[in-house]
């Protein structure tokens, strides 16, 4: 179990750093088709901000913000966004994830519809990756409290 850190340096640094980490993660997700990065990398950086908060302010406070149940729902929501955009293209008469067909729905040109479609898919991937990474980290961090009766 990860307890709250007593060190004022670690706590202050984490509090100051987390907003910048989140903004950088959003930049990586939004800018994924021009520069290195994309949905997976942005999701991992978002999860890193949660890990930083968990080891500086204790796991209990982070569980109040993002419980295991919420993380499970978010991961499913991310997969739903990905598959939903793909199926929407299928329903509009194209192939699976053929974003150009979204132009009729969004009333923009096909090239811009492709860009927006990739952005939507990457947001879905980022949500799913963030939630699953947080779930894995929470499970590892709280390993000893689940099996406390055996030891």
């Amino acid at each position, binding site marked *: 179990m990860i307890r709250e850190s007593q060190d004022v340096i670690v706590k202050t640094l984490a509090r100051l750093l987390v907003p910048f980490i989140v903004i950088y993660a959003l930049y990586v997700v939004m800018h994924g088709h021009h520069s290195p990065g994309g949905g997976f990398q942005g999701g991992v*950086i978002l999860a890193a901000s949660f890990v930083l908060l968990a080891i500086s302010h204790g796991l209990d406070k982070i569980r109040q913000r993002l419980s295991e149940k919420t993380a499970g729902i978010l991961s499913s929501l991310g997969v739903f966004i990905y598959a939903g955009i793909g199926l929407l293209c299928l329903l509009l008469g194209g192939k699976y994830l053929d974003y150009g067909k979204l132009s009729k729905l969004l009333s923009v040109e096909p090239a811009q519809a492709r860009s927006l479609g990739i952005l939507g898919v990457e947001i879905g991937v980022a949500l799913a990756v963030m939630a699953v990474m947080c779930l894995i980290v929470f499970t590892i961090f709280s390993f000893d409290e689940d099996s406390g009766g055996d030891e």
Partner: protein
Amino acid sequence: MNIFFLIIGMGMCALVLLCLYRVTFGPNVLNRAAGLSAVGTKTLIILLLMGVIYDRVEMFVDISMVYALLNFLGTLVLAKYIKQSGEVEC
């Protein structure tokens, strides 16, 4: 000018080897953690120098920022683990 950055990068690689010596043969685990952190910082500088040499700094700056963040986080988690495991007094 590229030769200049290449030589600096090679010097950094030699310094990484020196830090790796401390990570391998460090007397206790705290020396190893500090050595790992120093290796991460030097890798970051090498990445930026590669960006200058290949003339794509704007791409490598993104990668090196993520590397700096994960290096900091890894050192913090390692320090937390060492403290809670109680193997070393600190």
